[in-house]
């Protein structure tokens, strides 16, 4: 474009010589120019391995899951078509509504804390902590398997023998049943996951911060903008696309909380941590009701699709203000 407008005589650009040079350029660097049928074949070849994985492990199970959600199926034996009966039962199932409630509680606590803390960490990494060692150390909890992190905290927060409760008692406060009491069980698990994921989220946001050109900040400081207002008026708006992506991914991730619950409270106390994924697992794998479990999974899928759509729409995640 720029070369064309700068060209003194437009007609010259249409000369055979320039066309020829373009052609030779195409021959010289295959794939860099026009993408024709020949490239499509190569593209398909490269996509193929990923496609196999996608079809085998995502597409087929999704379609089969949707089919199973309209059946009664105990894994042993054949699925029996029962129409929308599973969905009708779910609408009346108090445990489903309970699961939706506790899952939402978990998501809200987890996302708010994680995003705020991660943003703070990202800014610190960007401005203060330039050392690779410190930046790397932030990622350490994320390197731990979810189950290990959960078990470690389960042990440290134990009512009887946990070091945290020993400390609380030493300070002179009554012991807290972090996993055992209904009001604490979900916040505790949300905090554990916040602890584990914070560094990773911070790293994503940090990458986003680095993409904001320094010239914008220079201009702001010349205009006399203070650090706080620079953050609200420049950093945050320009970080929005990355923030949107991070939020969509972390919200989807935390709606699917499972392993922490599975290795600690297993839905209890009473129904306080019976989150959606765990309830799906319980109905399908413990109680051999794969039809009902599939229907619950389809509902979770729809919820996530809607939530992700709303987030993208409102955060305008596909546009950047940098242009």
């Amino acid at each position, binding site marked *: 474009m720029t070369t064309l407008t700068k060209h003194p005589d437009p007609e010259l650009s249409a000369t055979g010589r320039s066309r020829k040079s373009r052609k030779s350029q195409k021959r010289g660097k295959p794939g860099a120019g026009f993408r024709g049928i020949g490239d499509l074949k190569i593209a398909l070849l490269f996509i193929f391995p990923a496609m196999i994985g996608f079809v085998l492990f995502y597409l087929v199970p999704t379609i089969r899951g949707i089919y199973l959600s309209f059946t009664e199926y*105990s*894994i*042993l*034996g054949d699925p029996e078509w029962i129409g929308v009966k599973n969905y009708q039962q779910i609408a009346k199932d108090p445990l489903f509504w309970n699961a939706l409630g506790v899952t939402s509680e978990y998501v809200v606590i987890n996302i708010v804390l994680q995003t705020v803390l991660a943003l703070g960490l990202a800014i610190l990494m960007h401005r203060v902590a330039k050392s690779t060692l410190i930046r790397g150390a932030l990622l350490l909890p994320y390197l731990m398997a979810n189950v290990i992190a959960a078990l470690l905290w*389960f*042990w440290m927060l*134990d*009512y*009887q023998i946990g070091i945290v409760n020993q400390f609380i008692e030493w300070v002179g406060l009554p*012991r807290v*049943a972090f*996993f*055992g*009491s*209904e009001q604490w069980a979900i916040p505790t698990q949300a905090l554990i996951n916040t602890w584990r994921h914070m560094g990773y989220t911070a790293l994503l946001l940090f990458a986003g911060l680095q993409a904001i050109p320094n010239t914008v900040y220079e201009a702001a400081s010349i205009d006399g903008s203070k650090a706080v207002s620079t953050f609200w008026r420049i950093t945050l708006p320009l970080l929005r696309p990355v923030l949107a992506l991070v939020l969509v991914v972390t919200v989807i991730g935390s709606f699917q909380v499972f392993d922490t619950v599975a290795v*600690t*409270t297993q*839905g*209890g*106390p*009473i*129904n306080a941590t*019976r989150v959606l994924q765990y309830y799906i697992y*319980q*109905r399908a*794998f*413990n*109680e*051999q*009701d794969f039809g009902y479990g599939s229907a619950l999974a389809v509902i979770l899928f729809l919820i996530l699709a809607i939530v992700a759509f709303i987030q993208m729409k409102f955060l305008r995640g596909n546009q950047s203000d940098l242009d």
Partner: protein
Amino acid sequence: MKKKVLGAVAAAAVATLALTACGSGGGSSADSAKGEISYWLWDSNQLPAYQQCADDFHKANPDITVKITQTGWDDYWGKITNGMASGTAPDVFTDHLSKFPDFIKTKQLVPLDDAVSTDKVDLTQYNDGLANLWVGQDGKRYGLPKDWDTVGLFYNKKMAADAGLSPAQMASLSWNPQDGGSYEKAIAHLTVDKNGKRGDEAGFDKNNVAVFGLGLPGSDAENAGQTQWSFLSATTGWSATDKTPWGSHFNYDDKRVQDTIAWWASLAQKGYMPKLETTVGANAPDAFGAGKAAINANGDWMIGQYKGYKGIDLGIAPTPTGVDGKNASMFNGLADSIWAGTKKKDASIKWVEYLGSSACQDVVASKAVVFPAIKTSTDKAAAAFAAKGIDVSAFTEHVKDKSTFLLPITDNAAKVAGIMKPAMDAVIAGKSPASSLTDANNQVNALFSK
């Protein structure tokens, strides 16, 4: 050139196919009474005994090798079910009364009737009633009994002596749902707070308890109160289901069981038993081993673990006598079943018959871990326990006196547990009254009216 390459590839492919065909041909030989069969169990304490059985079995039948896999109870059933669906379940596995109805319904077990009659397995050698537990509603037999279990009270002898309770007193406790009888008195007296005050003394601080009179492993709803409260509720004349085995109506709406549960839950409110919320993630036997509880009600399969705690002088008392003036215990037994998908049925039958014979059950008896199903082996196990200095009469007397009742054997066991556990937890945690079990009971019974 190209053709040559193709030809070579084709030849190689044919050769590979031929080789693999040979390989698989050798594996599934016509005689299915040969080769390796897989056997699963969940209790690691029993693994050495059964490994010994497998080695002895291999000596007697050199053509058959048994490969034993032990998987903890929490993952055991999921793995078996998934294995059945994917064709990788074990040939033979330790089966549980609460699980086998679902396997029968989905035709996953091999009926053993023909084998029992051809090989003349003596079903009367087992303790009374054990063999017939494994007969399904279709009248077919799906397992040979391997052991049985009852429930008793494990207690800390030193704590009891300090509280002035003699072994004879501990062995003759009585209970009723109104004031808990001498069972509650003993529990209260054995409870000590941080200031050294006993649970039945004035000034007892129920919020700062050092030693609980009774330990709490959980609400025990999954197996109908097997180790925690069923031995009490049974003395009121209550039964979990309309008939056993194969009941189709549960009775948790009955005042008798609700009163029992209400009494039990009240112990936590009084400070005599840990609050449910403090036991999440905790292990009740270990708390007993650490001297944090004086009494633990538990099954005989736990003897080894309780005996193993260092510095604890272990006493074992029978369950308290109840409303009907007698004591009671749930009677449960395990069996070995054969998966219908096995490719080595004959070998599997041989192994199951060996497991159900006195040859193997005497080996199990000699290890003093559980009580084998065969009467003579049971006596040998009791002797083996006695040789270790453990008096197991609290468990065996239930079988001699026929003071046992059965674990409810019904369909939908996992779904029943899924409903009952949160409901029972809520009552034990003091969040809901015992009458709320009526609601859960209605949900449970709705499962059977479908």
